[in-house]
């Protein structure tokens, strides 16, 4: 079996259909370009959907309890936290911001006069038990001690920063014991007592998502409305959260319970638009592949019909069914390979266009490789039907038609 001798009839056949082959090559190249870029967009967005926030999201629930100003209310912030702590199934409870809701960026400075701006990290502010409720992982230093928790208008707060922020602000140095200054409360200072593995205020794909500061403040007898948080025993949140919300409302008749949500629900809400768009893009991708397969298969089946007499002749001259099958498969492989060569360039070209027009990131080369593989596979699948039909052409066709 000489593999290259079987290529000769293929090339002579292709030369006779220059126009159709060119079109097919173009179609495959364009399909590959669109496919690679769509998959890249969808995959980038899906990766964000699974990015961690650094809190124990699966067991955290949020109760938004809004104080109606002007209505007497017996509940107090400290009392409410204690009350939530005592709800069966609750591991920890507090009051404060959570990722996606409440945590927003604040400028921080190196000096108390607020001249040297360092960064704009997310500021997570909460009451006693806040870090424990979020379940952040401390990798250096410690959580603020009970006795050093400041009241709400203290000048210096003990705080934690994320590893990402620490590396940015103090490369190769220990952040513990250093001071940061915030613009709010007239330049309040933060003494760094611990470093958290990670804590993200939102998930946008930017590196700054993971720059965060966590501050705990002691709350007492004030009547606070806002986000109360609980962390349940693992897997118990669905059962515990409604109980906690009910207990909180009962103790605070002057509040409106407006939203009771698990972190998972908040997360889902944040990403539902993106996942819908991913579904739409995937549907477009599927249609694109179907159309291209139709085109490849259609043209192949046309060629088979057109060349029935030649096939018959080759069969009569001793070509096996397998040889005919391989002829069409190899033909397809050659056409698709030409398409892939052009498609690789087009994929990158389209990416450059998308980068300029729609501020998309640069496409990694794996997507080109994947697009090429997909095209080869698609071509072979699309050609299989017509090629099998060609292989079934009996040798007698040659004589009959002549």
């Amino acid at each position: 079996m000489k593999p290259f001798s079987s290529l000769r009839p293929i090339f002579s056949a292709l030369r006779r259909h220059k126009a159709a082959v060119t079109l097919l090559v173009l179609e495959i190249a364009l399909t590959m370009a669109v496919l690679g870029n769509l998959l890249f967009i969808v995959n980038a967005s899906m990766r964000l959907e699974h990015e961690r926030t650094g809190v124990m999201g699966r067991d955290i629930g949020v109760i938004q309890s809004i104080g109606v100003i002007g209505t007497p209310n017996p509940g107090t912030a400290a009392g409410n936290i204690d009350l939530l702590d005592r709800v069966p199934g609750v591991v920890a409870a507090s009051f404060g911001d959570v990722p996606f809701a409440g945590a927003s960026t604040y400028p921080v400075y190196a000096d108390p006069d607020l001249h040297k701006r360092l960064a704009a990290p997310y500021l997570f502010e909460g009451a006693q038990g806040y870090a424990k409720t979020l379940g952040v992982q401390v990798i250096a230093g410690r959580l603020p001690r009970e006795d050093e928790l400041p009241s709400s208008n203290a000048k210096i707060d003990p705080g934690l920063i994320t590893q990402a922020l620490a590396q940015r602000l103090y490369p190769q140095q220990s952040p513990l014991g250093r001071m940061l200054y915030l613009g709010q409360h007239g330049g309040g200072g933060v003494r760094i007592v611990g470093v958290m593995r990670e804590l993200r205020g939102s998930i946008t794909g930017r590196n700054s998502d993971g720059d965060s500061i966590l501050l705990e403040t002691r709350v007492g007898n004030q009547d606070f409305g806002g986000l109360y948080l609980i962390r349940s025993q693992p897997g118990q949140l669905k059962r515990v959260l409604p109980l906690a919300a009910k207990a909180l409302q009962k103790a605070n008749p002057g509040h409106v319970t407006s939203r009771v949500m698990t972190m998972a629900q908040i997360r889902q809400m944040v990403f539902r638009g993106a996942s819908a768009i991913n579904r739409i893009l995937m549907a477009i991708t599927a249609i694109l592949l179907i159309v291209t397969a139709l085109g490849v298969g259609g043209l192949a089946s046309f060629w088979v019909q057109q060349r029935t007499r030649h096939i018959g002749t080759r069969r009569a001259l001793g070509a096996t069914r397998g040889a005919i099958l391989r002829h069409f498969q190899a033909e397809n492989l050659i056409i698709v390979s030409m398409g892939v060569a052009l498609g690789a360039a087009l994929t990158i070209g389209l990416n450059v266009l998308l980068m300029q027009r729609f501020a998309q990131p640069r496409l990694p080369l794996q997507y080109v490789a994947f697009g090429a593989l997909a095209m080869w596979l698609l071509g072979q699948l699309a050609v299989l039907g017509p090629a099998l039909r060609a292989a079934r052409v009996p040798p007698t066709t040659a004589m009959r038609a002549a």
Partner: protein
Amino acid sequence: MFGYAFKLALRGFRRNTVLTALMVLAVALGIGVAMSMFTVLHNLDGNPLPQRGDEVLHPQIDPRPADLPGARRAPPDNLTYIDALNLYHLDQASRRALMSANWLPLRSTVAGSPLRMETTRATTHGFFPMFDVPFQYGAAWSAQDDTRRAQVVVISQKLNDRLFGGADSVGRELIIATKLFRIIGVIKSWNPQPHFWDLDDGAYGAAAQIYLPFFTWLELPQDYGYGPMDCWGDNPGAGNHNPKAAQCTWAQYWVQLNTPAQVRAYRDLLVRYSQQQHALGRFQRAPNVRLDDVMQWLNYKHVVPVIVRMQTWIAFGVFVICLLNAVGLLLAKFLRRGGEIGVRRALGARKRDVFAQCVIESALIGLLGGIVGLPLVWLGLWLIRQQPVSYAATVQVSPLLLVYALLLAAVATLLAGIWPAWRAARIAPALVVKSL
């Protein structure tokens, strides 16, 4: 001539059903994808106030300090409390609306009725006529209601349905943020998209449930946020509990100016106001004003999500691939009929006849593809409406777009057929007839 070509085309379809069906399907899928995405874009891109979008304008001035690292050159979108008051009182003649949004605890006057947070728009009386808000019952409040801080409220049809079973509730009372308000109007379902007058919480979404006079709202016992609060300087939280903070913008302002001369005069007024405030020492920057009409404002704010534009481009790319596909298949189809064409040419048909015949056949395939594609457009839009994206629910199919879809399918496939038809017309009759 056309009738004959048409008959031949139909004959051609029958001869090669599979190939024809493939082409029709490819065109249909391409049209389905491209037109669904285009409809979405068209919906999001539309003018939400077609009757007077160019007469309703959004003034912006720049009260920021001169030295503000990282600040954009464009003025802030909204006004500070003091500028909002000044501008509102400066121009008494034109229709105008000062506004903001938050949510407020509301309950009915029935004892023991539950409290709920309701989305609130605080605005001045000009809002309703300026934006053509339709009323089901009652009417908007008056200028006097604004000045004397009247405790009146306009509610949405949805809230009226929930609280009063859809009955005429004008004259009844509600407790909003612990104060007693009299209902003076119920508006019909009204929610133009994008809701250009407030893009703070995304451009596509639900309208407010209650509408209160702006100055009454400002004086309510409340701390429920003040809309698009944005503060410059060291403390981004300065305005959270204090709407009057000097470094915070949040008040939204729209004016109606009916003639270009009025627009010019108003722009001058904004510049003069900025200069005057500069002279007073309040403003540090040179006058930096904007005065956009509705569509300019929407473009300036890039309300159409980038991904939707990109999706539409990609969908049309898919359509082009479908057409390329069609060109290939048409070429195969026409050349396959070389024998027939040769005989026709030998019998006296001119090149031009063969060409016209093939082009008509292509257009017919396109039209068929379009017809099959229409239900696909409808299906695609139905699927999109099921998606939990803020703008999805409002996407509508207009009959005109469906006509465009058909036309696009026919014309595009016709164009795709030109080159294959030209190739077919070039078939030399002598050679073909000899080989038959």
